[in-house]
């Protein structure tokens, strides 16, 4: 890639203003075929570095142990789904996937409900302590979760929630609230006031105004943050290995996969590992292909605020 960079520079003229800049009309400049070709080459090479490791994993799930390591770059000699069956049944990928879906579905739903409620009240009502509560929520964004790790473990344990999905869900909700409240408060502040007031004058209660008027109006913001939270909670690794370590029937996908990879060597079942890995990546890939724009917007929304 560095080679491309150098060539691109000589093609494009001096870049640091040393010497007189070549006078060019933008027509010519835009159509420079050498620059275009090299751009595409660089982009293509990076695309390959992203796709190939993933593709290799897919293919390796169909190989045999020996084939994987004696001929790492070869194609599988035959398509056999055995390893997929082993991964799903014996390595419990099915269970982990199900657990992840439960935890993330409840975690995100809870986060969005409580986050939207808090954000709405904090952004649209003035009362004593409003500023303080808002700051309390938002300050959670600056603390690294590792600082809280030890006490958090004991809080969850003392509540009897260690090794339970409920405990993990509540912790996910709690740690997703700072960003959710921060983002949604900003969003609710931009919504027009008169509509909500009109609803109130027509006799709607505060709660009804919130659910039937404000939530629908806030839909774009809610979708972005839902996507953000789903991906964040789905990919969480630290909290499950600390809070669910003791009961492998309750493990979520990330910790299950990491554990399978530790065991793959002992059990000499590498195709099984790659099948498990493939089963983890495919749902993410499918969801990504369908909701690509929302996902990109949702994940970058934090940075663009």
């Amino acid at each position, binding site marked *: 890639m560095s080679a491309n*960079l150098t060539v691109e520079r000589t093609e*494009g003229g001096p870049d*640091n203003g040393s010497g007189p800049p070549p006078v060019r009309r933008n027509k010519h400049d835009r159509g420079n075929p050498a620059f275009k070709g090299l751009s*595409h080459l660089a982009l293509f090479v*990076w695309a390959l570095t*992203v796709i190939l490791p993933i593709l290799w994993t897919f293919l390796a799930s169909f190989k045999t142990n020996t084939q994987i390591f004696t001929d790492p770059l070869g194609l599988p000699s035959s398509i056999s789904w055995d390893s997929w069956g082993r991964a799903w049944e014996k390595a419990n990928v099915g269970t982990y996937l199900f657990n992840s879906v439960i935890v993330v579905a409840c975690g995100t739903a809870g986060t969005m409900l409580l986050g939207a409620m808090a954000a709405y009240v904090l952004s649209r009502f003035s009362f004593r302590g409003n500023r303080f509560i808002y700051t309390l929520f938002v300050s959670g964004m600056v603390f690294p979760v590792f600082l809280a790790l030890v006490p958090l473990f004991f809080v969850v344990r003392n509540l009897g929630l260690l090794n339970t999905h409920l405990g993990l869900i509540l912790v996910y909700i709690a740690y997703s609230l700072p960003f959710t409240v921060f983002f949604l408060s900003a969003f609710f502040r931009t919504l027009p006031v008169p509509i909500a*007031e009109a609803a109130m004058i027509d006799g709607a209660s505060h709660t009804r105004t919130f659910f039937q008027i404000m939530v629908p109006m806030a839909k774009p913001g809610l979708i972005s943050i839902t996507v953000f939270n789903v991906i964040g909670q789905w990919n969480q690794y630290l909290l499950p290995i600390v809070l669910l370590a003791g009961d492998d029937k309750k493990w979520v996908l990330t910790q299950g996969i990491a554990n399978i990879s530790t065991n793959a060597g002992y059990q000499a079942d590498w195709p099984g590992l790659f099948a498990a890995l493939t089963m983890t990546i495919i749902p993410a*890939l499918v969801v990504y292909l369908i909701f690509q724009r929302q996902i990109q917007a949702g*994940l970058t929304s934090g940075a*663009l605020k």
Partner: protein
Amino acid sequence: MRMPRGGARFVISFLALPIIIYVIFVIAPYLQAFYLALTDWKGITASPKFVGFKNFEVLFSDSVFWKAVLHHGILLLVLPLVTLIIALFFAFLLNMGAGTKGVRGSRFYQAVFFFPQVLAVAVIGVLFQAMYRPDKGGVLNGLLDLVGVEPIGWLTKPNLALWMLIAVLVWQAVGFYVVLFAAGMASIPKEIVEAAQLDGCSKGRMFFQVTLPLLWDTMQVAWVYLGIAAFDGFAIVQVLSVDRGGPDGSTTVLPLEIWRNAFTFSKYGYASAMGVALFVLSLTFAVLTLRVTRRERIEY
């Protein structure tokens, strides 16, 4: 909106549950961490005993701690720099400068580049175990074998391992920043770009003197994000490195040591002290970055 009838009750009913959950699971643990850091708490049965700053004395003479701090320093320099340079380069190629329409396939490239961002770091760590295998069975070494190079112990050589982990983090992060910067570049007004082109501005100069200054805000956010990531690294080191942080501590990071001290050695007080150290380091970084990078904002 002022507080019309029934307002107070409504406010309380909407805030109660979020605040209770947040205080129990977030605020209380954070506050306790500062206290636990001053105790010698080691187990579940014994109650914590106050020992003042002893944990910190031990910490500052612990070579593992300094190794981890050094690794955060390296991450802090290398991760943002390399990621941002690659991402800016690709974003620039995709936009062919700024304000103009993107190259053909721009959407496709952005979609592919971004994909690793939606995968869990733990999953990516497992994925790269196969890439980095030290024998000819690994993908990288298999490729080297084609050109007759002996296999390299990517993760088993102490002076190489950390760099290979950083490479994975860069691999995952680049797409996110390409999308971010490409969006920023696309929103640069066409007139500015065309004016520069009419004045005979070359592509390179356009990049450094037009695109970059106008992207400054986005760059700053990106730098903070990657800086925060540099103080983490837990999942990738825990999953991918040899012996979790090895070989011989050459890839360890503070989050990993916190986790290990707490949940393997049951040194809860000591782990909390490490947590406080990590907090101070990352806070210092955030404050410094905001100070140093503050600049006049260019309105357009």
